[in-house]
C-alpha cells in the first residue's frame, strides 16, 4: 500500500511538475488521485519558501509605546529626535512602528527611544511566520475529526454565530472582492467584518492559502452535502490579515490584529471569544504580550501553534503565559516529528504527518480542508479552490480554537476556565500528567463539553 501511495504521489508530482512561484520558492503540485479535487502540498517545499524570509524587513523596525499623555505631535518629535525615518501609529493606541533612518539599525534606534522619558517601552519588531502545512478534502478523509471524536462532540455542541473566532493569518477567502473569491464551502459560514493590518481596511482577503485552510478547520460549512467539515461550523469567523502573501508578518502587525478583534463591537457586544494564531516567531515582544493580555482580560481565549521545527521551546506567541500552546500528533496519537515542544506546551491536536497513512485510506495523513491552490495564488489567481491535506501545528491550533469556541457557546466565559477544562479532560499522552512533549495531552472535545457533575 505504501508503495502504491508513493507511486501515486510520484505520478502526481511528475504530472504537475514543480511550480515556481513568487520568489523562486516552489510548491509540489497537487492531485494524489486524478480528478477528485484532493491535493497535497509538500511541507519540505513550504519550508524552502519560508527559508527565503519575508519580503518586508520587519526586523529592522522598532515598536514604541508612548506613555499616557503623549500626543501625536510629541510622539512625532520623539521619533524625529531618535532617528526614525517613518512611523505608523496603531489605530488602537499610542503604539508606533518606526523605521530607522538610513545608516541606523533597530537596536540603536530602540536604545534611543528607551532613553526618552515619554516612552513607556521600545523594542525591535520581530518576525513571525505561518506554521505552514499542506491540504485536501471530504469528511471520510478527515481522519483528524475521528481522532478527536467529532461526531459525539457535534451531538453536544456545534457552535453559534454569537460566538466568533478571530483568525489572524494570511486572510480568509470569505468574500468576492477584486481578484479574490469566496471559497465554495463557506456557503453557510458566518463572517464578521474583517481587518487587514497591511491595507488598514476591512478586506482581509487571503492571498496565500494558509488562512483559508485554518478558517476552514474551524468553520467550513458542514452537513451541506459538499466539501469537508469544520469543527465549530456554526460559529462565526472574523478574518484578520496579519501575514502577507508569503506568510510573513510582524509582532506589531499581530498586536494590531489582536487589538482590532478585542475592540470590535456588534450591537454593543463583542462576539469574538477566541483568537487563533497559527503562526510564530522567535522574538519576544512586549507589545504582543500586552495585546494578548488585553484580549484575555476581555474574556477572549488566545490559542497559538507551537511551531513546526521540533525544537524547544515553542515559538512566540505560543510561549506566552496567557496563550494556549498547541502541538501536533499524528493518526497514532504520537507526537508529530515536526511538532515543537517545551515547558510552555499546553495541549495537542491532530496535525498529521504527510509521510504516514495511519487510517489506511490511501491518502497522506494531513488535515483535509478547503483552500485555494497556493501555486495559482502566487500568480495572482485566488479562485482555484480545492481540498488540501496540510500538516503542521498550524492545523492543530485551530482545532483547539474551535473547541474553545464551542466551550464558550456552552457557557464558559473565562479563558482560564476554558483552558483548564480542555487540559483536565485531555487524553494523557507520553509521561503521566503534564509533560513537555505532549503538554496535558490530546484534546477530547466531547469530554470537555460535558463539564462536571456534582460528584463525578
Amino acid at each position, binding site marked *: 500500500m505504501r508503495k502504491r501511495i508513493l507511486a501515486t504521489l510520484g505520478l502526481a508530482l511528475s504530472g504537475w511538475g514543480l511550480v515556481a512561484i513568487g520568489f523562486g520558492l516552489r510548491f509540489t503540485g497537487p492531485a494524489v488521485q486524478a480528478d477528485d479535487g484532493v491535493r497535497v502540498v509538500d511541507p519540505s517545499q513550504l519550508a524552502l519558501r519560508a527559508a527565503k524570509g519575508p519580503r518586508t524587513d520587519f526586523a529592522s523596525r522598532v515598536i514604541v509605546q508612548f506613555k499616557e499623555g503623549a500626543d501625536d505631535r510629541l510622539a512625532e518629535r520623539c521619533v524625529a529626535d531618535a532617528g526614525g525615518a517613518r512611523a505608523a501609529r496603531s489605530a488602537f493606541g499610542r503604539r508606533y512602528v518606526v523605521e530607522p533612518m538610513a545608516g541606523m539599525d533597530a537596536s540603536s534606534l530602540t536604545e534611543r527611544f528607551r532613553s526618552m522619558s515619554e516612552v513607556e517601552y521600545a523594542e525591535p519588531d520581530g518576525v513571525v511566520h505561518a506554521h505552514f502545512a499542506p491540504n485536501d478534502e471530504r469528511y471520510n478523509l478527515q481522519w483528524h475529526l475521528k481522532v478527536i471524536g467529532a461526531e459525539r462532540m457535534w*451531538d*453536544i455542541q456545534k457552535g453559534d454565530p454569537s460566538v466568533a473566532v478571530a483568525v489572524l493569518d494570511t486572510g480568509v477567502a470569505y468574500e468576492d472582492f477584486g481578484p479574490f473569491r469566496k471559497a465554495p464551502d463557506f456557503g453557510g459560514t458566518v463572517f464578521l467584518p474583517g481587518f487587514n493590518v497591511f491595507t488598514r481596511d476591512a478586506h482581509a482577503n487571503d492571498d496565500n492559502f494558509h488562512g483559508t485552510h485554518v478558517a476552514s478547520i474551524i468553520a467550513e460549512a458542514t452537513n451541506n452535502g459538499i466539501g469537508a467539515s469544520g469543527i465549530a461550523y456554526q460559529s462565526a469567523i472574523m478574518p484578520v490579515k496579519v501575514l502577507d502573501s508569503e506568510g510573513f508578518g510582524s509582532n506589531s502587525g499581530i498586536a494590531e490584529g489582536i487589538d482590532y478583534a478585542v475592540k470590535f463591537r456588534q450591537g454593543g457586544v463583542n462576539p469574538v471569544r477566541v483568537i487563533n494564531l497559527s503562526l510564530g516567531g522567535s522574538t519576544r515582544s512586549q507589545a504582543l504580550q500586552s495585546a494578548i493580555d488585553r484580549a484575555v482580560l476581555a474574556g477572549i481565549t488566545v490559542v497559538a501553534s507551537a511551531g513546526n521545527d521540533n525544537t524547544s521551546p515553542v515559538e512566540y506567541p505560543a510561549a506566552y503565559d496567557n496563550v494556549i500552546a498547541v502541538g501536533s500528533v499524528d493518526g497514532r496519537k504520537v507526537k508529530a516529528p515536526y511538532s515543537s515542544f517545551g515547558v510552555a506546551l499546553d495541549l495537542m491536536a491532530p496535525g498529521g504527518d504527510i509521510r504516514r497513512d495511519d487510517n489506511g485510506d490511501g491518502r497522506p495523513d494531513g488535515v483535509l480542508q478547503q483552500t485555494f491552490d497556493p501555486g495559482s495564488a502566487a500568480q495572482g489567481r485566488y479562485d482555484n479552490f480545492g481540498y488540501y491535506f496540510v500538516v503542521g501545528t498550524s492545523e492543530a491550533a485551530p482545532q483547539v480554537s474551535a473547541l474553545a469556541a464551542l466551550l464558550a457557546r*456552552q*457557557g*464558559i*466565559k*473565562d479563558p*482560564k*476556565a476554558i483552558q*483548564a*477544562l480542555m487540559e483536565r479532560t485531555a487524553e494523557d499522552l507520553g509521561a503521566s500528567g503534564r509533560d513537555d512533549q505532549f503538554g496535558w495531552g490530546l484534546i477530547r472535545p466531547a469530554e470537555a*463539553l*460535558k*463539564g*462536571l*457533575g*456534582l*460528584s*463525578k
Partner: protein
Amino acid sequence: MKGPRRGFPLTALVLGLLVVPGPAQAGTFALMFDAGLRTMSNSPETEKAIFDDQGGIGFGLGLSYDRGLRFRFGAEVRRINRDGERAFALDRTSEAFRLGHPLNFVMTQSLATVAFRFGKIGPVSPYLGVGFGFVSWREESNTAGVIDQADGTSGLLEGRLGVERQQGRVRLALEGGITFVPNAIGVGGISKVYEETDLGGLFVVAKIGFSSR
C-alpha cells in the same frame, strides 16, 4: 455502590417498640409528615454551581414514640429531589459556569432520632433533638442523550430544634436544624474542584401528624 436498606431505622424502631414491655401507662405514638427546605449549605459552592439556588424541597415521613413527658424516640425517612446542571469551575476560588446539561440529584435520608422535650411555653412545646443514620444518594445527568450516573451511601448526623403544638390528636411542629453528611462527595465532579465533601446543611421544615392520644 449498594448501600444499606433505606427503611432499616424505621423498621427497627417499629419492631423495637412492639417488643419493649410497656409501662403501666403506655407511651404515645405519632405518625408525622414533613415538608420543607433542605440545603447543602455545608458545601455551598457546590450547591450554587450545580443548582444555582440554596436548598431544595424535601418530603419526609416519621414515626415517633413518647416515653414519659420528656423523651421522644423516632425514626424518619425523607427524600430530597433537586434539579440542576452540569458545570465547571477553574478552581475553588473561581466562579462556576453552568453548561446546560440537566442533572438530577436525589437523596434519601434514613435516621433514628431522639429528642428532649422542654415544658410548655405558652401554647407550644419546644424540643431539642439529634438524629443519626445514613444517606443514599444518586446523581444522574444527561449530556445530549448520554446518561452519566453516580451514587453512594454515607453516614448522617443531625441536630434540630423545634416547637410543637398538639390539638386533640393533631400535632403540628416547626423545626430547624443542620445535617452533616461528611465525606459523601468531593472525590470527583464540581465538589472536588471546590474541595467540599459534605452533602448536609441547614434545613427548616413544617410537620403535621397524628398521635395515638
